[in-house]
């Protein structure tokens, strides 16, 4: 019963964040445009040799999603901080983890949409064909997005309320995300540009382990972080 109440609260928070995002539009469009720009810049840095570009595509697409996504994480608290709405939100009854779950879901949707745009653009720009194993790629993308969003949403709760939040969030987040990035990039590489299939399998299990560990830890620690 209580769990269902929390689920309703989390869904309400996610819905509120996504509605605000949808109505303003500018936010997502700007971030998506930035992601595409980053991809183009990667093309300049690595190109124009099409073999080299194709080999680097998995790395470029995940980094573009990360660099653009990190802006979304800070935004998800910034809108409330600017409106003075975070304290009232915390005063609502119910556990704080419902708030975290809601923000997590909203950011997950945001990053997933971003990844769709980034991957579609990469397929075109980096001349990569859609592999026959695309359902496996979909799983890798979902797991990678969960990894990025879990710690991203968690650290943004701190960074967005500190001085120098623009630099602090990436500084805290990027080194912590090294396992997710390595695993997501390697698994994507195995699926997109070839490589042993069992490679992708091992990296996928690392992604699962990382996601589970940090989902549990962030839910346990979020109370401490948001109340301070």
């Amino acid at each position: 019963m209580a769990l269902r109440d929390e689920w309703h609260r989390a869904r309400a928070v996610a819905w509120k964040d996504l509605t605000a995002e949808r109505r303003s539009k500018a936010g997502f469009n700007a971030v998506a445009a930035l992601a595409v720009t980053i991809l183009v810049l990667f093309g300049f840095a690595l190109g124009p040799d099409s073999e080299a570009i194709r080999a680097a595509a998995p790395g470029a697409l995940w980094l573009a999603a990360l660099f653009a996504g990190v802006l979304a994480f800070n935004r998800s608290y910034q809108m409330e901080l600017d409106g003075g709405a975070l304290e009232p939100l915390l005063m609502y009854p119910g556990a704080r983890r419902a708030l975290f779950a809601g923000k997590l879901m909203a950011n997950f949707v945001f990053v997933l949409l971003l990844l769709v745009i980034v991957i579609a653009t990469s397929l075109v720009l980096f001349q990569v064909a859609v592999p026959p194993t695309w359902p496996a790629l979909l799983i890798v993308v979902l797991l990678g997005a969960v990894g990025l969003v879990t710690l991203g949403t968690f650290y943004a709760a701190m960074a967005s309320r500190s001085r120098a939040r623009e630099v602090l969030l990436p500084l805290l987040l990027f080194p912590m995300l090294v396992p997710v990035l390595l695993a997501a990039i390697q698994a994507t590489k195995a699926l997109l540009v070839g490589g042993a299939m069992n490679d992708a399998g091992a990296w996928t299990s690392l992604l699962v382990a990382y996601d589970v560990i940090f989902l549990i830890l962030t839910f346990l620690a979020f109370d401490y972080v948001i109340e301070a």
Partner: protein
Amino acid sequence: MTSAVANSPFEAPKSGRWLLFGWLAFAYLIAAQAISIAISPPDRDMGDLQKILYIHVPAAWNMGICYFLVAIYSMRYLWKRDERDDLKAAAAAEVGTLLNGLTLVLGMIWGRPTWGVWWAWDARLTSTLVMFLIFAGYLALRAFVDEPERRAQWSAAAGLFGAINYPIVYMSVRWWRTLHQVQSTPDTLDPSYALSLRLNAFAILFIAIFFIRRRYEAALTERVAEHELQAAVLGGSSRG
């Protein structure tokens, strides 16, 4: 009239004995270095270059101890809410990051003539570098948050996560690529090298303990002063 100390929940540290401990630690470090340089023969492949390992390897071991302390004190802070645990975690993180940097730089100086490159993307090197970046982020977080309770809770979470992440980072870069020689333990070495490594491991440990204590005392003194200032501004000697 209440003494000024009563306005702070804890007393400022008295560091007399620890200063003596520090002198002894430094003297012991010098002795340990002298002994190792004297008794260990030049290595067959590396020559006298191997002497750098008497700081590099102990620094790496003690870096691990420091980060372990960060995790322990961070957890203890979240459990007991004693501000002093937060300051201890911070001091251990500072010394750990310092030893981490030392490990990296000495490793590079050693690697250049041995491997022919300053840097190799191997599992141990890369995960050590990632840990350095994680704890650089931890220290930046502390620097950018002014409110003490908020800083304590946030950095406890960040410190704990960073320490927990180490095995995952290590495993991921290990799968990614590996080249480092099997790590040194006293068992894999000639006895004269082993003795030198042990002596210096303890030397760096004592220095690390001394530094952690000093940084903790400095932070504690500052917090006591802030508590007293706050009490004075609020007018009165209310405990709190």
